[in-house]
């Protein structure tokens, strides 16, 4: 089954998002920051979608996506940012790195579930 990688330094958000997705029969892997997310993706070829925070310690979410595209050469995994940020310049940076979408927190799972499922197909 296609997996979703949830990357967030806040265990409150990480747990809530992961729990919601699991309740909706989706397979979830979690990571605590961008560095951890990069590592999880390297070691797990089943990950098809990443839902990631932007502001995180060690490595931020946008840097993680840029490394996924650049260092890992992975252009197929879909990425959605889930963040408190809505700055146009950050969104532009995300677009340039090929992210698929942007959600401003708080996470309202039921609003975006269908879209997430589509990105897994």
């Amino acid at each position, binding site marked *: 089954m296609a997996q979703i990688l949830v990357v967030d330094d*806040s265990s409150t958000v990480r747990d809530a998002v992961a729990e919601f997705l699991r309740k909706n029969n989706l397979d979830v892997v979690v990571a605590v920051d961008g560095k951890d997310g990069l590592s999880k993706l390297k070691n797990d070829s089943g990950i098809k979608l990443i839902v990631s925070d932007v502001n995180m310690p060690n490595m931020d979410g946008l840097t993680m996506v840029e490394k996924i595209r650049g260092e890992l050469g992975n252009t197929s995994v879909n990425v959605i940012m889930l963040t408190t*940020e809505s700055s146009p310049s950050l969104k532009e940076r995300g677009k340039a790195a090929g992210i*698929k979408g942007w959600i401003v927190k708080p996470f*309202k799972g039921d609003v975006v579930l269908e879209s997430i499922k589509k990105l897994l197909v």
Partner: protein
Amino acid sequence: MAENLVSKVLVLDDSLEHAHAIKEFCDNNNLIALKVRKNRLMFVLQSNIDLGAILYSENYGGSIKENTEIALKIHAFRPELPIIVRRDKEVTLDSLPDIIRPAFCAAYIADDMSTLRKVIDEYIFSLVYPNALVRGISEITEAVLSSQFKQLTIAWDTPYIVRDRVVFGEVLSLIPMESNWCRGYMMLQTEEEPILEVLGLYNEQDHDTNFRAVNSLLGEITNQIWGAFKNRYIGDTSPSSNAQIQVPLVVSHKHKYISFGTENPHLCFLYKLVDGSTGRTVTLYQRFIFNLNWSPENFKELGHAAEGFVDSGELEFFK
């Protein structure tokens, strides 16, 4: 000054003759006057964390000796609180004994309250807070709290100004706030047990296991408030050119005291999150301390409605 800001002042003045004038002054100047019995004074000072100043009388306490002792004790215990002394005849501190003079920041007489007004403006309402900012902070915070505590009712007091530096509760979060019009911190303070109860994680036998859940939740609330604040008031503008300048924060665990290296008063909001089914209440203090830069003349609310703004929680697809 924002029209709806208030500040709490402790009135240590037994004069029946001037009581009405002082109360009227407080009512007309956004001050909430608190009275206390002498034998409970230190207890109130210990437990009250959100005072703006103390209105003292040079006759309080009954004798000169007792008056001096009380003033010195308050000043030693809470030096961050300005003590303004009402004198019978003089509007200066000059003729007071050397020993007591340093305890007071200023003097006034009841016949001329304009002096007191100037002192209050100088020590309490010294920073101008735009109405749109004060109102917006409440709205942002209420929205974030509602999203995190869906089952609770959220109420908040009128925002107020404090000079106290005493920390409330057992856990606090701090996040730096950087923009071209403000530099400082937002601080959230709360108690652990009520949040654990609300989360269903409270264990009477084990007080230590679940505290990280409170930390994480408070951190996320802080993060979301700051994010919404940035989106509404800061946008893509760069921080001020002196963004490298910092001052140390000092926390005394023993005395539950935090210093931001400035005498500036704090902008404070108090929220009560009530569980209607159980009556349990979570108290959350939110303070804004603009200790590094405060330039409200550059403040502006961003017009997000203009282009492509997507509501929080919804997915904005990129092509």
